[in-house]
């Protein structure tokens, strides 16, 4: 080992025991790998390939129907959903399953997609870090005295012969540059070097534009980790429902109205009139509409959809009312026609499935009736302990309880969301737009000039790194024209 005995490097307590992989050659190899990795991550070609691959994933994701969020995490719902789409993908027997195992129904949650986005993020950061030193250097310490060869090889270059002395020429050239908004720097040895730039800080606008994407991504991740979202918060009219955030908040739906347009018969407004309660006490009232959510602190309630509900009253054997509330028909049975509402009866272990009619042709549940299936959640069995069809307005005894289907009402489905990441998303979006817009509108420009003496006057060479534009005259061409004009003006007597 090459290390000196008295100064063991940190963390290598066991290293003295024998030869290890931390020898210089291995380190070199690690260095080489890291360097290669860095090179890969800052490579424009790799970044472009990643962007196009993400685009390909996007195309797949918009062509193949995607699982709704929530379904993918729930194994049972997942199987149901896959069975539902199976008929659409039946070219060969296993098509759906193969597509499912390739994660084609959840492209934006798929492993490949995550990897690609992570790679892009890392590449964005690497790229930006890589560029910062250079950007700072060109903004603060630009190279003024470039060599003569540059003025022959730059993408755009021009030579002007002046009658003025080099010093006069220098003043005129600098004057033109300044009039056109350029900052000018001049150094002098046997020749005069002139440098001009505009919008030198706008390079950083491009950098900010890139990094803003990382900010947006951070916001999305934060929202995913620390946010709360319940897209299926259904409440029937008259009912009160606890919000799942464990803050003692609940929402009562006073009533729900749909307004239809008189001409087209299309819904023109949905309005859920709600009361927000904390620990049972009213703290706010609001009519929630599609573009007008209810906000409480950082929690927001949006109007999502609506449907019909069954108003049920349930009493125990002694006649005590266990519950009287609307049950939203927010599910549907596997046959697809009958709607289903689920109610767990307070103070008991019973769960009720309330099944609605599918219409006039329904021979089992007629209009004006509901079917009630009672499950005992304590029991392992999946078969109902009682199952009856009951008429509206008539009390019936089901599983020892007295149940009445009072009337049909409506329910509203709200979407409850808390998203602490959203601030970052908007901040990132703002920076993204402003960054790139500035970068496009006020592009960083640089020109170099070189003034040399000739017999009775001076020679000005001008050059820039910007490409020539085939379609319109470039700034550089305009600038050179201005300098020509200035140099041709009659010399002051």
């Amino acid at each position, binding site marked *: 080992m090459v290390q000196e005995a008295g100064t063991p490097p940190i963390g290598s307590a066991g290293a003295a025991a024998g030869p290890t992989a931390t020898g210089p050659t291995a380190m070199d190899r690690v260095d080489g790998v890291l360097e290669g990795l860095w090179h890969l991550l800052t490579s424009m070609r790799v970044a*472009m390939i990643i962007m196009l691959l993400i*685009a390909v994933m996007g195309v797949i994701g918009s062509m193949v129907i995607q699982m709704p969020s929530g379904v993918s995490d729930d194994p049972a719902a997942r199987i149901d959903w896959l069975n539902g789409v199976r008929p659409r*993908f039946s070219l060969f027997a296993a098509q759906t399953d193969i597509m499912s195992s390739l994660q084609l129904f959840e492209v934006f949650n798929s492993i490949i997609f995550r990897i690609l986005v992570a790679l892009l993020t890392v590449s964005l950061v690497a790229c930006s870090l890589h560029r910062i030193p250079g950007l700072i250097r060109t903004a603060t310490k630009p190279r003024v005295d470039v060599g003569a060869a540059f003025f022959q090889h730059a993408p755009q270059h021009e030579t002007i012969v002046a009658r003025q002395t080099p010093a006069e020429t220098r003043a005129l050239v600098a004057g033109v540059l300044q009039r056109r908004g350029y900052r000018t720097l001049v150094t002098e040895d046997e020749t005069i070097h002139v440098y001009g730039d505009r919008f030198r800080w706008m390079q950083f606008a491009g950098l900010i534009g890139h990094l803003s994407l990382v900010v947006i991504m951070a916001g999305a991740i934060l929202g995913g980790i620390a946010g709360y979202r319940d897209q299926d918060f259904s409440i029937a009219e008259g009912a009160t429902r606890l919000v799942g955030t464990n803050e003692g908040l609940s929402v009562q739906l006073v009533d729900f109205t749909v307004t239809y*347009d008189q001409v087209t018969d299309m819904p023109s407004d949905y309005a859920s009139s709600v009361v927000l309660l904390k620990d049972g006490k009213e703290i706010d009232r609001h009519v929630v509409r*599609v573009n007008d959510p209810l906000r409480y602190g950082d929690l927001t309630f949006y109007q999502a959809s609506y449907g019909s509900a069954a108003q049920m009253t349930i009493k125990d054997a002694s006649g005590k009312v266990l519950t009287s509330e609307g049950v939203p028909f927010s599910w549907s049975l596997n046959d697809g026609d009958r709607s289903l509402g689920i109610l767990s009866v307070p103070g008991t272990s019973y769960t009720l499935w309330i099944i609605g009619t599918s219409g006039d042709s329904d021979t089992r549940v007629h209009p004006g009736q509901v079917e009630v299936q009672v499950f005992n959640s304590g029991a392992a069995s999946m078969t109902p302990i009682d199952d009856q069809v009951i008429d509206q307005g008539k009390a019936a005894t089901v599983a020892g309880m007295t149940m009445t289907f009072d009337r049909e009402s409506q329910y509203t489905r709200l979407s409850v*969301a808390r998203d602490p990441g959203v601030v970052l998303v908007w901040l990132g979006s703002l920076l993204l737009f402003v960054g790139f817009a500035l970068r496009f509108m006020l592009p960083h420009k640089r020109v170099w000039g070189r003034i040399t003496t000739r017999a009775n006057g001076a020679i000005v060479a001008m050059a820039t790194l910007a490409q020539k534009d*085939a379609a319109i005259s470039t700034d550089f061409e305009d600038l050179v024209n201005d300098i020509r004009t200035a140099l041709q003006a009659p010399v002051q007597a």
Partner: protein
Amino acid sequence: MEKLSGYAFVAAMLSTGLATIAYLAYAISGLRAARMQTAGMPSTTGALGFVSGPRTAAIGRYATMLGWMATIFLLAGLIFRSIVAGRGPFANMYEFSLAFAFGVLVTYMFFERRYHQRILALVALPVAGAMMVYAFTIPATIEPLVPALQNNLLLTVHVAVAIVAYGSFAVAFAASLLYLLQGRWALVAAGMLIAGIVMAPVGLVMGGITGLLGGLLGGGVGGAISGYIAHWAGLGKSFEGEASGRWGLPKPQVLDEIGYRAVVVGYPFLTLTIILGAVWADTAWGTYWSWDPKETASFVTWLIYGTYLHARVVRGWRGDRAAWLLVLGFVATLFTYFGNLFFGGLHSYSGLG
């Protein structure tokens, strides 16, 4: 007033048709001048490579006038309709198609003023015309907004910004198509055809009706790849760097440059469209992004043009490959625009059920 807007739309459509004919006459006149020039007859070659004969310029001026007329009629129609409806004309596919056509016309006219390349009209005007014809085949009733769209300011800005982006991309597409047409077009056409034929059944397997769009997209990708292979293998004669265009068309570098300028205009607008869409989704539904197909398609479009900008600015891609990315980008733009007809999702407001 509703009638008036209808008349304005018809007038706009007629003017677009006439303008297209005039631009065609202009192009033919230029082509003849180009032939005569090779035969030694008097004519002039402009700085940008377009050859013109004695009458060409006059025809060109008429074409431009007709183009402006079409733009103004369309604008008038859209304004009248907004007044009747009491909101921006952006609620259903009919209105949105006319707005799209307006976007294409306006950006085209803007680029014509700036770059004096009337030939681009041969692609841009038919795109606008097709949008108008399409609008006339679908119901034109003025409908109230469905609740999700009842946010006037956001809706108006979101769509108005989108239209500028789409219009710019149409101009970029026109430039890239004229560019490619001068090159290895036979190979390219064959590539698109083959890719389309291969892709359509694949699309059908994966998503039924969207197979059609899949085929289209596949055609674009396939054409891009075959064009690229042709480029890489050195098949056919390269014309990059030629001093004047073929068949009286503009110089390749000019078309390349215009394509880039158009994307530079369109890209920030597309970015803004997506951001405003997210803001809106957040106020209406409480999620700023839900990978709804239309959102996804606009994101894909954004990535493609982003790649184009890097390719051109950082890696110095010019010519064939850059032009192909622009074609691909415009296919994605159309995919974004027509997407909601096929996909449903949150954007299923087209009114075409």
